[in-house]
């Protein structure tokens, strides 16, 4: 059995069809798109085509609303820094507690510079309270930034509705859609979303290419000033090969949209159902009714995530964990803490994320090994009674260290 890749929310394999369209831009048409000679022939046209392919996938009204950047993180930073620079009198930002580090750490830094950051909490299922959100909106707010889908749990936020509310209050709205683009359909021209970030490597394009969607008419200040590339909105010679690759990847994503939401979802559903049925004291985190079709995040109580990943890896299965230990901190992931997942489980969450390259037989393979992996680690755990195969009665009390 070849290795099984179930870590597609971290990054994806580049589709071979994407690689194919990229290669000429390394070896033949490597000219600078701004140049006037045969090596640059057709490069500008290829960029325009790619811009159109991205536009199509996200349903933008104009292709000039697509700005190519170097990654999702750059798009996120550009959006927020642009909004505060363009509106220097507005000193507040609204976001959520469960954003990606690309937003969270930027906001934390702005907080030090004197900005007020409102972080919307989530409930135990990872959902936002729109009433609370409404109360935060005011003419002091420079921008709202809310992720479209969460990278750990796949939970989808009602960004279309939230953008309407922001618009009514006269506040700019940005969404980090890095996990959502290509997995769920969207039609930005029918929304009030002003800015959106996406990243190529989450949808079978290469790493190091991203897009900032900027609605026509939205006030904007570039992050990088210099050449006239991207109409002066993002200077720097274009990453032509990757842009062309991203365009093709967007086209493929659109073609596979139904497959993603039917077949890929079926694999995900089968995996999580199988695990929950076979393994006691395990549960799915996030909003089960509002999730990306490819993501499941499962908490295994009384064991630790990194240890699970190491055993999975040995069995040839790649997944990832919100566990603290994988990042080197002692705290479980901020998403698990925000959802108030109990400590007994928060350290043992595993995210399986699928793509169209996965198969049902891979799901069966994971279901075959998962119960043993959990059992082996629980046998080592001081909180688990292997004889009765359940947690020791009152685990916190049974284990009484002299210090905590």
């Amino acid at each position, binding site marked *: 059995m070849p290795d099984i890749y179930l870590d597609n929310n971290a990054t994806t394999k580049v589709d071979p069809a994407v690689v194919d369209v990229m290669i000429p831009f390394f070896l033949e048409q490597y000219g600078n798109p701004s140049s006037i000679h045969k090596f640059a022939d057709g490069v500008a046209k290829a960029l325009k085509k790619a811009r159109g392919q991205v536009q199509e996938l996200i349903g933008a009204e104009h292709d000039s609303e697509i700005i190519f950047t170097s990654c999702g993180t750059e798009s996120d930073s550009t959006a927020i820094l642009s909004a505060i620079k363009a509106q220097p009198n507005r000193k507040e930002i609204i976001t959520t507690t469960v954003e990606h580090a690309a937003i969270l750490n930027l906001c934390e830094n702005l907080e030090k510079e004197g900005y007020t950051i409102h972080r919307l909490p989530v409930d135990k299922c990872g959902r936002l309270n729109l009433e609370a959100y409404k109360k935060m909106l005011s003419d002091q707010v420079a921008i709202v930034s809310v992720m479209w889908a969460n990278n750990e749990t796949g939970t989808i936020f009602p960004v279309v509705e939230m953008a309407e509310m922001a618009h009514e209050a006269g506040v700019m709205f940005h969404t980090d859609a890095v996990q959502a683009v290509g997995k769920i359909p969207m039609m930005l021209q029918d929304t009030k979303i002003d800015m959106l970030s996406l990243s190529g490597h989450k949808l079978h394009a290469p790493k190091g290419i991203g897009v900032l969607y900027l609605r026509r008419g939205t006030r904007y200040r570039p992050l990088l000033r210099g050449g006239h590339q991207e109409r002066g909105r993002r200077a720097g010679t274009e990453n032509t090969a990757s842009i062309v690759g991203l365009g093709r990847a967007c086209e493929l994503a659109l073609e596979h949209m139904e497959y993603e939401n039917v077949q890929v979802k079926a694999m995900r559903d089968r995996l999580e159902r199988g695990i929950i049925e076979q393994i006691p004291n395990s549960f799915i985190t996030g909003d089960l009714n509002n999730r990306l079709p490819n993501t499941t995040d499962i908490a295994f109580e009384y064991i630790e995530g990194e*240890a699970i990943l190491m055993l999975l*890896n040995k069995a040839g299965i790649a997944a990832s964990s919100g566990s603290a230990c994988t990042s080197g901190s002692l*705290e479980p992931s901020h998403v698990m803490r925000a959802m108030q997942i109990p*400590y007994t489980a928060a350290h043992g969450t595993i995210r399986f994320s699928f793509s169209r390259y996965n198969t049902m037989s891979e799901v069966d393979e994971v279901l075959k090994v998962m119960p043993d992996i959990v059992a082996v680690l629980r046998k080592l755990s*001081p909180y688990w009674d292997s004889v009765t195969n359940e947690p020791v009665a009152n685990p916190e009390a049974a*284990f009484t260290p*002299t*210090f905590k």
Partner: protein
Amino acid sequence: MWDYSDKVKEHFFTPKNAGAVVDANAVGEVGSISCGDALRLTLKVNPETEVIEESGFQTFGCGSAIASSSVLTEIIKGMTLDEALKVTNQDIANQLDGLPPEKMHCSVMGREALQAAVANYRGEEWKDDHEEGALICKCFAIDAVMIEEMIWANKLRTVEDVTNFTKAGGGCAACHEDIEAILEKVLAEKGEKFDPSAAPIEKVEVEKVKTPLTNLQRIKKIEEVLNSLRPQLMADGGDVELVEVIDNTAYVNMTGACNGCQMSAMTIAGIQQRIMEVLGEFIRVIPASEMKKLVNIAH
């Protein structure tokens, strides 16, 4: 993922001595489920010879926590308790052919569980004395608590000072932003302002200007501070008593409401800060109940 050595992987995938020793007569437990790692060490000690005949572990934690537990049980088997107490966390890490800096705390946990188990066998109470902060400098595995203590103790003012005293920041320099943040915080607590361009302090000068206190002077001054704090403690129904001063460590007994209450750790930290302010040198304040343990290790 982590760059674990083959030894770590070996002990993780095929752990030695997993599970509790039946009829163990020494048990050491450290960590908690909320911290993300917890270890219970069970030993069977020969009462005549004090030799560890059997050892077993139960661990909730990551790969290196399990590997550290496993290798520890192998190291100490056949040792006497006194020999086992000399095992350091570095020994555990060495036996595993090293651990990533972020994971060194796993080996520390192993050593602590061992100390706790020996204390348990000897009928003593064991308390943890080390505090661990967020890892700041990955090049030299220095955490925030260590840096803060050194800033306090040596009146450090710049990143360069911190590097000179702790090594933190002396490698790739990626941690300088974090070190500046700590400096800003600690200096603010001392009522000073962080100035990145301040001249680095000169070690020699500091030593020259400040003749160190004799132990007797130190004890007297500590007593004075405790006396000044006493009314406040008594108002809360507690009291504090100085038991011993060894080098820069003051052992105190917390009594009444302070003893064992949730706040006692905070109270001790507050006392420590006051003493440091008055004495102008780094002093560690530790509950007297931990004295024995430290003496044990010393021999």
